[in-house]
């Protein structure tokens, strides 16, 4: 695949390296002359100095035959424009934008960007996972369906300990998929499964029912 990466910062550099290793044809556009030169010195001639938001730059590097454009500069608006120019002027089939402000996720989607990756959200989610007392952790978002996969940990003081799944008042949009008990094999919960302290429950839910799910699983 021919993939264009806009922005040669840390993310752009490591992304280029990883994709080159996978055997893809890569070209990075970077505005800064020094950074551009460093990338060429380290990865070979895969970086062009120029503004990836400009149609002229994209034209020069043959964006018309690109399979994908990934915009990973530090500025959301630049990533938006690079993707839109690629999509509408050069008909690049797939565009991916990095976003810093999580609120822009919905906006970019509405403005026609195929995929957005919110670096801020990714970091937040990873940190959440490591905070043991956090009541509910986001593991994965199924974007096109508006669903989330979350993990809820049952604490020894949870009022639901000893109750069976059918006794819980789960929100209708939520499905319990897996229970990982302490020192036990993961198992698929049934209506009669009894919740125990330290159980980790993996569930699918929509964002609106998140709070209700948490309350149903941990009690008040």
């Amino acid at each position, binding site marked *: 695949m021919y993939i264009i990466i806009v922005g040669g910062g840390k993310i752009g550099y490591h992304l280029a390296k990883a994709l080159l290793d996978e055997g893809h044809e890569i070209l990075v556009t970077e505005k800064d002359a020094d950074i551009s030169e460093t990338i060429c010195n380290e990865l070979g001639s895969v970086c062009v100095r120029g503004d990836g*938001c*400009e*149609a*002229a730059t994209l034209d020069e590097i043959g964006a018309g035959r690109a399979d994908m454009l990934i915009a990973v500069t530090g*500025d*959301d*608006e*630049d990533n*938006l*424009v690079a993707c*839109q*120019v690629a999509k*509408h*002027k050069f008909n690049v089939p797939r565009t991916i934008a990095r976003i810093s*402000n999580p*609120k822009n996720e919905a*906006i970019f989607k*509405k*403005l026609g960007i195929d995929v957005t990756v919110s670096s801020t959200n990714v970091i937040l989610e990873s940190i959440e996972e490591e905070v043991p007392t956090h009541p509910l952790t986001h593991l994965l978002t199924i974007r096109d369906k508006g669903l989330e996969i979350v993990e809820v940990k049952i604490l020894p003081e949870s009022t639901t300990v000893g109750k069976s799944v059918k006794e819980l008042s789960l929100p209708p949009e939520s499905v319990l998929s897996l229970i990982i008990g302490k020192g036990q094999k993961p198992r698929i919960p049934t209506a009669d499964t009894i919740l125990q302290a330290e159980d980790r429950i993996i569930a699918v839910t929509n964002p609106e029912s998140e709070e209700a799910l948490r309350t149903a699983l941990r009690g008040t």
Partner: protein
Amino acid sequence: MKVVIMGCGRVGAQLATLLDAEGHLVTVLDTDTYSFRRLPSIFSGTALLGDGTDEESLKKAGIEEADAFFAITQGDNRNVMAAQIAKHIFNVPKVICRIYDPLRRELYNTLGIEAFSPTTIFAQMLKEKLED
């Protein structure tokens, strides 16, 4: 009319002053309060610190009730993003955007954004001066 102007540079401040003098309800947004020095003391509109590419700031500026939105910061991409948010998310009836880069202006015009390129307009004007 309720008008929101993003960017209080020379053009933004001038436009805000003109519209304010005509009795329109003007809100000017800028990410730097120092820019507001360009507004005259008689300016009766609102000068608001905020980023026009941020939904919250736009809401604070009253974008939901605005009749018109102007995106005239120094950054083409910021203008383009703010203009699209105003048009497609908040459905502002009149959205106008400045794009210095003529190629980018052309593209966004075809995407339905009313955009002007001072570069093209000024170059054309200078050329006409020569031909006078």
